[in-house]
């Protein structure tokens, strides 16, 4: 009858925004009892090319980030940011 909390990244989406990319990550947070899921909820976060990933522990998310966020993508993102004006 032990209750445990389990968090897994169940979706990693690579979304193109003009000429750079954003990773949209979804975590499924489950409350388990003896291996059976009692309840679950989703938590989402996004990673931009300049995101600090030092606190990301999921190796799959890190691998996806490093594969997608090439120097060219990071440069494109900085160009994109510089082009964004305020209203």
């Amino acid at each position: 009858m032990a209750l445990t909390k389990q968090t897994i990244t169940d979706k990693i989406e690579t979304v193109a925004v003009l000429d750079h990319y954003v990773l949209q990550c979804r975590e499924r947070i489950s409350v388990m009892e003896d291996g059976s899921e009692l309840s679950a909820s989703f938590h989402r976060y996004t990673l931009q090319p300049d995101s600090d990933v030092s606190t990301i522990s999921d190796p799959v998310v890190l691998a996806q980030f490093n594969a997608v966020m090439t120097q060219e993508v990071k440069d494109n993102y900085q160009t994109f940011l510089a082009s964004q004006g305020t209203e």
Partner: protein
Amino acid sequence: MSVLQVNTINEVTSANGVTIDGLSLKDGNVVPAVGKGIDFSAASGSASGSSSALLDDYEEGTWTPTGTNVANTSVGKYIKIGSMIHIQGWIIASASASTGNTFGGLPFSADSVGNALGGGSTMFQNADTHHRQYGLLVSGTGFSMYDGDSLATLGNGKQIHFQISYKAT
């Protein structure tokens, strides 16, 4: 045309549900396959000029607002209906420092192509002794807070409650 008339169709194998032409019915729920949903293209007036008539997604969850000096007790929730994102949240500036005027952490990247930034919202804060209303402008995975034409800053220990709607990429 043959007509099949039955009162009840039950799954043969528990947990598999029943599938009819790719559409699954399981435990009282309609379970569309990936990329499928409710197709409104034949509905009168809905498809003409629309870039999509397929309602193919629904999701609820939480997200975490980020930004300079945003307290880690800040929280956010989201609902995704098709490509429309509705979020609500509560941001608290740290007790010792103001936040900036731009926040991040949105659960989905906004469709900002063509400068159609989306956003727009209502909110209030207790930055002063009274509640004030500000505007929020979405861009990418973040948003900025405006007081009229100018960017506004959230003061030390102050907080905002807000809601935003935007279209996902």
